[in-house]
């Protein structure tokens, strides 16, 4: 396969993996969320993420002949996943889940905004549709971050601490791929550096409004490795749990 095709494939797989894993993490809050209304909102966001992941796996299957979405989503070896470490971490308390959701979704929004103009034509319409869903995800995250950042002393401290934990992981979203140059030259995607820049410019003013101190990205070691298949200890047990039903009865016609 030529480098351009490889580059697109790699880009699609990491996006699909990020969405599948964060979608599953969000879904772990179902029934355990802090209040019914919020439970419904986050569950719905989780459903959007898994749906977006499915769409990308289907696109990969159609364009590049990868396995079907279920096989790609549930039955690959752990080191074949290309998700970043941010999405793998357990939910922890709600503060961490919210900050992760905030940091992740602002990056997603810009990523799909950039892909709307991609030279890889099949991604354009998908990107536009995803963006309208992610607009709600961002709204949900922003309202909470502003509110809890400026709420009580406890809520502020918890959000600040969660931000400091999640920030180096979030920088791992932008781990450069081996194909950055190809993607940029072929006008497929402007690259992780450009995305990271736009992301920082977006989240900084919101964090300021929320009275939260954004860690200085230049003084932080980003959590890289996920894009090359090196994962935290949290991914393997998660995949185990996600695929349990499918592996229990692979011949089942429905489950």
């Amino acid at each position, binding site marked *: 396969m030529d480098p351009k095709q490889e580059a697109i494939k790699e880009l699609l797989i990491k996006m699909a993996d990020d969405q599948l894993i964060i979608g599953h993490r969000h879904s772990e809050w179902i029934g355990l969320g802090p209040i019914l*209304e*919020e439970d*419904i*909102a986050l569950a*719905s966001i989780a459903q959007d993420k898994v749906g977006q992941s499915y769409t990308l796996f289907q696109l990969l299957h159609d364009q590049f002949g990868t396995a079907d979405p279920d096989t790609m989503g549930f039955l690959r070896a752990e080191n074949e996943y290309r998700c970043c470490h941010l999405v793998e971490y357990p939910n922890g308390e709600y503060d961490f889940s919210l900050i992760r959701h905030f940091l992740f979704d602002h990056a997603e929004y810009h990523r799909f905004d950039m892909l709307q103009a991609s030279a890889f034509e099949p991604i354009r319409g998908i990107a536009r549709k995803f963006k309208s869903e992610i607009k*709600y995800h961002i709204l949900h995250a922003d309202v*909470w971050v502003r509110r809890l950042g400026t709420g009580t002393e406890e809520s502020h401290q918890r959000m600040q601490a969660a931000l400091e934990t999640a920030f180096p992981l979030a920088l791992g979203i932008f781990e450069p791929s081996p194909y950055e140059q190809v993607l940029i030259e072929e006008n497929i995607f402007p690259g992780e550096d450009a995305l990271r820049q736009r992301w920082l410019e977006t989240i900084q003013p919101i964090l300021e409004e929320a009275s939260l101190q954004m860690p200085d990205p230049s003084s932080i070691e980003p959590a890289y490795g996920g894009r090359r298949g090196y994962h935290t200890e949290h991914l393997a047990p998660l995949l185990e749990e996600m695929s349990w039903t499918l592996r229990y009865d692979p011949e089942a016609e429905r489950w």
Partner: protein
Amino acid sequence: MSDFIQSLDPRIVRLQVREDQPFEPKEAGDQWETYEVFHQAKTGARLIHVGSLHAPSPDLALVFAKEQYGRRSTTTDMWVVRTADIFTLHRQDIDMFETAQEKLHREPQGYMEVRKYIEEFKKRQQQEGTSDGSEAGSH
């Protein structure tokens, strides 16, 4: 030491909740206030009251309303209003809507009758039109 609750749901097992864990009683009034949700299904249509929800602020009420009342049908607009901001009558005054028998002339039934006459007239005209047509065709 008691055992942790065992469940088929791995998330519950991970929470390590003791079987005899005591739950503190909830304080009265610790819930968020309620908002009334209005939904518009088509541009220009009236916004219709579809239900209520709990939220700590108007912006979060809108965020919640979108998923609770807007995700299963087409939506062109939504409003939320604090339930406490709605003015209504005292329950004991609701009887003012009861109408006395001698005031039936104020109700619109009479106009409904007119509508019926118009419909009948239209139907008659149409039938006459069709019978003319079939005669013309048979010749």
